[in-house]
């Protein structure tokens, strides 16, 4: 009746590029210079956009919104591995990646200025609208992936969450289900180390988030989430695994939110300026720029031009969104069901009497 070890696990940590922008060639994924430059452009666009939305919020032109400053590599690196027919299921801190995917800037402005039209036609980009109830998007991605599998397609579903989401039941149910049915789903946790004020040490006693995937039989890895190449390499591996029919993966992208949780938050309440400063140094955009400059494929002049292009794009998106005005009243009633029932119809007519009052 021996007592013996019957299972053993370990978690890999991957970093390809260090904080100085120097890469380990043996780990470097196969990406062209042109593509790397493209990553950089969208990370910068994401950052500039983020800052612009912040100032719009302060001017009262949009409502509460979550910034994603500092997390550009963690989301874009994974999203860059998707093909057109794959599906993307975001949380709410993935602007850089979503912009790279082709989601228009104006959609975010609409949503955060209180206008549902920013969510319409998600099928165009194969990207669902942002998701606020924490962790609740994970089962959706699993279902999409199961659908892909049942239809014998080669597509994959990629879903994002924060570290806090891993405490919700939906996380565990989704991973377990995905593991059992070996669906082509890639779970990416942007571990920015905080769920509002709650640090990761109070969120879980696990040494890593990645190991939670192991519990469900899912290949899992932790990567430097501020290193675009590490995120990309891990996501490539996961996407290939899924496309080949070998099931789901979990990627923990270790990063840091260089901003408040949302425009209503004040992170000074729960973390020090010194801590933020330490993470500024690891900034994913500055790091990639150092790499590009060392390879002599990026110049000061290109940077200036990029920033100008970003501003122009963003200004025109703001105009586009603001020109749309207020959604007509029938939008409130018209999308509840395919057909409006009698009760709703009566309420719609009644509401028209009070419009503008």
């Amino acid at each position, binding site marked *: 009746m021996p007592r013996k070890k019957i299972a053993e696990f370990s978690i890999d940590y991957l970093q390809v590029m260090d904080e100085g922008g120097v890469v380990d060639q043996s780990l470097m994924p196969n990406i062209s210079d042109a593509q790397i430059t493209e990553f950089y452009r969208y990370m910068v666009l994401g950052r500039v956009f983020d800052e612009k939305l912040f100032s719009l919020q302060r001017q009262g032109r949009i*409502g509460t919104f979550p910034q994603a400053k500092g997390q550009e590599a963690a989301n874009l690196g994974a999203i860059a591995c998707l093909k057109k027919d794959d599906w993307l299921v975001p949380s709410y801190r993935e602007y850089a990646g979503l912009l790279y995917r082709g989601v228009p800037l104006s959609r975010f402005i609409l949503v955060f200025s*209180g206008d549902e039209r920013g969510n319409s036609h998600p099928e165009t980009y194969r990207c669902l609208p942002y998701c606020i109830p924490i962790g609740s998007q994970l089962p959706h991605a699993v279902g999409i992936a199961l659908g892909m599998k049942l239809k014998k397609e080669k597509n994959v579903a990629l879903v994002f969450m924060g570290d806090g989401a891993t405490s919700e039941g939906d996380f565990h149910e989704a991973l377990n289900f995905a593991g059992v049915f070996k669906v082509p789903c890639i779970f990416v946790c942007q571990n920015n180390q905080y769920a509002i004020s709650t640090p990761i040490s109070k969120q879980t006693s696990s040494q890593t988030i990645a190991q939670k995937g192991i519990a469900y039989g899912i290949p899992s890895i932790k990567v430097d989430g501020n290193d675009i190449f590490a995120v990309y390499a891990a996501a490539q591996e996961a996407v290939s695994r899924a496309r080949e029919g070998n099931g789901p993966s979990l990627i923990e992208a270790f990063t840091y939110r260089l901003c408040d949780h949302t425009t209503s938050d004040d992170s000074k309440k729960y973390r020090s300026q010194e801590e933020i400063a330490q993470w500024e140094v690891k900034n994913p955009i500055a790091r990639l720029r150092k790499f590009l400059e060392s390879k002599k494929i990026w110049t000061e002049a290109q940077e200036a031009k990029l920033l100008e292009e970003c501003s122009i794009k963003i200004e025109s998106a703001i105009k586009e969104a603001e020109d749309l005005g207020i*959604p007509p009243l029938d939008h409130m009633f018209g999308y509840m069901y395919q057909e409006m029932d009698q009760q709703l119809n009566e309420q719609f007519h009644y509401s028209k009497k009070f419009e503008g009052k």
Partner: protein
Amino acid sequence: MAKLNMVQAINQALRLEMKRNDNIILLGEDVGVDGGVFRVTDGLLQEFGDQRVIDTPLAESVLIGASLGLGMYGFRPVVEIQFSGFIYPGFNQLISHVARLRNRTRGSLSCPIVVRSPYGGGIRALEHHSESMEALFAHIPGLKVVIPSSPSQAKGLLTSSMRDPDPVIFLEPLRLYRAIKEDVPDEDFAIPLGKAKIVQSGKDVTVISYGAMLWVTQKAIAQIGYKYGVELIDLQTIKPLDVETIIASVKKTGRCVIVHEAPRSFGVGAEIVSQINEKALYDLHAPVERVAGFDTIVPYYKNELKYIPSEERIIAAIEKVMEGI
């Protein structure tokens, strides 16, 4: 006596009751170090320590389920759900266990917990932060539901909720958190659950409301009060409903308008109409009117105020029951 807003009044109620009763513990996401995202629990961690003010992982099911365990183990958990739109992962615990524990153990065990949560619309919030789903909770046999409409009322009702032997869902209209200040007595005091408040007496029409809608209703009444004698009732407790006060008023006035922000159908208004139908039908001079949110998803904020009952809609309803127009 100090002038406090609702956030401060709730904070004070929590603090006084925690001093009075060592078994009260606060649990929730960001309630400790952060003091709650609305700062309702600000300073309580510093005052009572991390054994009584507990920052938890992000998980509403265990928050509510573990509160049941703590509650049967001699504690009085006061749980904060950050927004009522995020209570649903814990809904299973509420409906399957919290509401049933006393009954299924034939009275041996009970669940003296308070679940506090900001609720309702009107602050230009993001999706899922504006709904009024009190009827869901009121529909669950075994739960009590309380909704205050002012700072001192919030203090008195929360104090009673924390002393109640059964589970209470305490919904805090976030639109009122900082909108009004009023004199609140410094010492602890309790407003009994299950009792409505007659805000003003009148002989022509009974108007019933609660929470943030009470203020909109009062503004509406201010505009037409010169025409009709309005009796305004603030429910305070949704469940158990103070049917006695409602019926006595409707028997006197013969007319009634109910105002709530929650969707129109299958809600608190519908229950009140049924009670009137059963107990005062022959005293009515006109059909009872409901002014409510629509049976739709609360729109994102550009159109949010078209969803929430306005003064104009309330006035129109009062005129309709008065004049039949």
